[in-house]
């Protein structure tokens, strides 16, 4: 899979690379996370109990409330933040939060990105090129 590239329709932020944490599930900073400790805390979430800190989150869609727009900035100030977000579809809140919190984001692919990327894979996110590349 090394070198394979997925192209996104929407992108922001700067280039990063790291380990992917993947689930066919949604994301809300308020609903799903223990933001102080840095892991998924909602029991029904498919990543419940797993740390998101420093990983590239690959998820289906953004869920829930508007709080995430502030929370990503606050999480970054404490270093308890994902390295980047990759979504099949994204709502404005996560895009606004990523812009405010300076976190790279890709969204909108021709295939289901949560199926295309295995959890644990090392990937590079390049917002300028709108690409996810397997390393």
């Amino acid at each position, binding site marked *: 899979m090394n070198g394979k590239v997925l192209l996104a329709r929407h992108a922001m932020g700067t280039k990063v690379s790291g380990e992917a944490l993947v689930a066919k599930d949604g994301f*809300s900073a308020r609903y799903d996370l223990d933001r102080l400790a840095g892991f998924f805390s909602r029991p029904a979430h498919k990543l419940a109990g797993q740390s998101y800190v420093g990983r590239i989150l690959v998820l289906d869609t953004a869920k829930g409330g508007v*709080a995430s727009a502030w929370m990503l900035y*606050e999480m970054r100030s404490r270093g308890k933040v994902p390295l980047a977000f990759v979504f099949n*579809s994204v709502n404005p*809140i996560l895009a606004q939060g990523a812009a405010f919190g300076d976190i790279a984001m890709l969204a909108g692919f021709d295939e289901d990105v949560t199926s295309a990327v295995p959890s644990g894979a090392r990937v590079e996110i390049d917002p300028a090129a709108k690409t996810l590349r397997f390393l």
Partner: protein
Amino acid sequence: MRLNDEETAILAGDMGEVPRQALAHQVAVGDFFSAEDFVPVTQAHVMADTESLGEAGVRWLESLAEVKEGRCAVRIPTITDPRGTDFTKYRQLKQAEWMVELERRAVAALVKLGVSMTDTCINYQTVLSATRGEHVAFGDTGVVIYSNSVCGARSNFEGGPSALAAGLTGRTPRYGFHLDRHRRASVRIRVDWTPASLNDWGALGGVIGRIGGNYWAVPVVEGIERPPTSDELKHFGAAMASFGSIALYHLVGITPEAARLSDVGAEALPPHRVGRAEVQALQNAYAGDAKVDVVVFSAPQLSLFELRALADLCDGRRFTIPLLAVTSPQVKPDSDRFGYTARIEAAGGTVFSGMCFYQSYAREIAEANGWKRLATNSAKMVNILGGYGYAPVLASMEECVGAAETGRLR
């Protein structure tokens, strides 16, 4: 994005650092969504409780408020979502002094920026509802879905930084639900049962939200047998937004953009059938233990009529566990004048003003008070509180009040 002369000048800093920062943020978001230009907005509604902002967010607000040069205040009516506390009752919730101090700092900074501290998530019932076709920049998903769907206004979910930016610049990027093409139905729901209670309306909204499943889905619903009340649609929409991130729905023959199915382009969509069984299944997922630690009515804040109904249920009772009812600073004085507050509190309940339960350090107050099993009639709240360590139970207002008396749900 295509910028006009004024926007180009703002981005160049000609009007000061505050509007420059605001517009730069808006351009980043607009570019992400391929917005062609900006649209003027008439109101902004800012979600800015300090559990979300944290110390970092409050410092950022304070840094904006300290700027002295250029245009330093909002230029359109800009109001706020609930605070993270009721300043008169925070000790009862066992909130820490640092939480309240952080709230005070956030309020001071927002006031310096010209923001009106309405502290409400039901501004469409209490402050000024938007009208059909009016472009606004609203935060709080419940406010957006009600304004878009019931009022026919046009807003995206605007998180706190973006809603404040809209207040400071008087505009927002033209994408999403500001555009006709995103307001057409994409999911057709045929219901064969019309809810009666607020928790049933919320649960139906939750079921439809899960079917829609993402922000860009627009459900159109057929089969509602009567015009719902504002409070019923408040719970219906808030839960739909919470469970599915939905920002707009249509009710055929009821909401303003869908007099007929064809008005929203839905004739050819295959219908999903939703009935009482699906709604009950969602409620059963939040049935839980019969023992209850605390009863909460919040999310959204209660209207005057909800408080009236609650007061009627409280008469002659004596609660053995806390019952918390949360409303807006606009409704609370009327609740006091009409005696609803006194009747609720005579039974042992408490009426809070200007806050929202789940935005008020819900995890910390659960630990401080020993609360885990929480009963509520808000489908939105049961969806949220699982992530805060609660075991929430969804029940009717009557059942919740009974639980406050006996400590158990029947």
